[in-house]
């Protein structure tokens, strides 16, 4: 375990991001919330925050841009992608456990399997992610209900834990290990007292999370429950206030669904665009002839829960929710996934008794 002081950490980030882009969490004074901001000039801002909890923005947009062209056609290059170096190196510092785990889940879809999205893969390869511990839990955080911890467990190249005067540092990948080795003059050996301090903060955040979420059921136990024969009334009730805005899927760090559409660039050239899409809106699965497998809003709200907690565990081996709570924060109808699970579990339990 290494220790790096604040001055050297700044030097470290500067070196890592030379010739590329650097993003760090910055605390916005008016809300107190953290936002990922691009740093183009050093020194780092005073309100840089490696403490607190996750940023408002998820990480997925670094590899899967909101909207970008994937093909210009016809083209003399055909389907060859020659310009593989067009993407910048990106260093993201201060990513929290929920977002690191989420990025790995999106990787499973976009990179693994028979097909790879080459654009996602190229951007992802150029990302160096530095994880950070949470020092507090947000109002809507529930990572511990999924059996996760509020610190980097996986998916980070390097992990930092803020302690007095600087950070404890650990490598998570060979790339991270290499980056530390190449800058070893910036690091010192961590002291026992510093590790104790880190562990105390961690224990406190876990305790806070447990306390905050004590009224809710374990989310990682919901897969079996929603697979049970639940009627649609519970989904009608859960979705009754939904306004179909799609904010929950857009802000979700694991929601990866997209649409391809074409547009003209001139009379004889066309461009295919990749854009995020939301399964919550009416037209998402609607086919020609107005056939729609999920015509009702409650079908679509239900689909979001089932996709994350039932279908993806079957097809990709994991629940696609990391308990970041962003969907709860953003919902203008105050739909709270934790509370929905409580209602579903109560309903399922009530049925069993009856």
């Amino acid at each position: 375990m290494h220790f790096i002081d604040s001055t050297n950490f700044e030097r470290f980030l500067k070196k890592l991001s030379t010739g590329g882009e650097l993003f760090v969490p910055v605390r916005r004074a008016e809300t107190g919330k953290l936002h990922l901001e691009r740093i183009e000039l050093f020194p780092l801002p005073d309100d840089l925050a490696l403490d607190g909890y996750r940023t408002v923005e998820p990480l997925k947009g670094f590899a899967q841009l909101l909207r970008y062209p994937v093909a210009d056609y016809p083209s003399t290059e055909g389907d060859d992608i020659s310009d593989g170096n067009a993407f910048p190196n990106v260093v993201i510092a201060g990513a929290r456990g929920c977002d690191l785990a989420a990025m790995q889940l999106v990787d499973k879809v976009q990179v693994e399997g028979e097909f790879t999205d080459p654009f996602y893969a190229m951007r992802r390869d150029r990302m160096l992610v530095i994880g950070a511990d949470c020092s507090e839990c947000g109002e809507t955080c529930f990572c511990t209900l999924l059996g996760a911890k509020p610190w980097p467990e996986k998916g980070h190249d390097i992990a930092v834990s803020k302690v007095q005067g600087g950070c404890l540092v650990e490598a998570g990948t060979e790339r991270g290990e290499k980056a530390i080795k190449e800058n070893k003059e910036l690091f010192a050996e961590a002291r026992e007292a510093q590790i104790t301090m880190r562990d105390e903060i961690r224990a406190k955040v876990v305790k806070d999370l447990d306390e905050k979420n004590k009224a809710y059921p374990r989310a990682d136990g919901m897969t079996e429950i929603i697979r049970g024969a639940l009627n649609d009334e519970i989904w009608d009730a859960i979705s009754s206030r939904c306004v179909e805005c799609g904010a929950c899927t857009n802000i979700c760090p694991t929601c990866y669904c997209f649409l391809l559409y074409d547009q003209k660039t001139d009379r004889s050239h066309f461009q295919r665009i990749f854009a995020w899409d939301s399964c919550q809106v009416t037209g998402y699965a609607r086919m020609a002839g107005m056939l729609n497998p999920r015509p009702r809003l409650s079908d679509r709200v239900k689909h979001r829960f089932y996709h994350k907690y039932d279908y993806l565990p079957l097809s990709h081996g994991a629940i696609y929710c990391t308990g970041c709570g962003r969907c709860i924060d953003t919902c203008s109808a105050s739909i709270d996934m934790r509370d929905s699970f409580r209602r579903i579990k109560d309903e399922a339990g009530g049925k069993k008794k009856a």
Partner: protein
Amino acid sequence: MKNPYYPIETLVEDIITETPTIKTFCLTPSRPIKFKAGQFMQLTVPGHGEAPFTPSSNPSVTEKMEITILRTGKVTDALHALKPGAEVGLRGPFGKGYPMDKMEGKEVLVVGGGVGLAPLRSLIYALLENPKKYKRVSIKYGARVPEELCFRRLYEEWAKAAPNVDFTVTIDVPAPNWTGRVGLVTTLLDGLDINLEDSIAVSCGPEIMLKFVTLKLLEVGYKPPQIYLSMNRKMSCGMGKCGRCNVGHYYLCVDGPDMCYDKIKNVQNVFG
């Protein structure tokens, strides 16, 4: 690295009007495309976008491909307005295709409705390539009215292809000058002279027809693992990534589009 989103330039050589609403597009892609019966292509109309279609032509031909399309939406409107000589684009093939290995040595029942005969045509070509591999190939087809019957020019050829092949056609409602069978395609499944235990049934057609064909097949004694259905969902990427063609936890674009009914029978709203 290859760009899986790029549509391969393809020439529309000829267009055959099959019915007032269905046309067959005879395509020559700029490089051969190998597909298995039942696999689908994403067909691009430049500037209008793409839509998924299963080729209706013989899968053993790779230089040319035919796709038979009902005019029913934005992309198909644009397709139907094309003239021979037009440029379109192809991506694919995607999906698993029909379970040809499971059909070997069996009595294969093929049930089509309307434009649903289009994907089945590529299956029929594959089956008739070597009919001896199957105990029997029985094709049942129905359309609403005689004018909407697809590929009428081929029925006789199919019916006489081999002694173990038969082809029966029906229309939904009586029509002048029609002397053939009248009744929904499900009526062709009454009194089947097929050895059910040794049979595989494959069906393609509109959702409502698939639903009633499935119910009928179950009623006459087929078991869910013996039934394969060409399911319909909106598709975009074709690669199991964009997330919209799910039936339960299956993505039709990688796990289908022909699904064994046994796998999807418990999915809510499976027939839309």
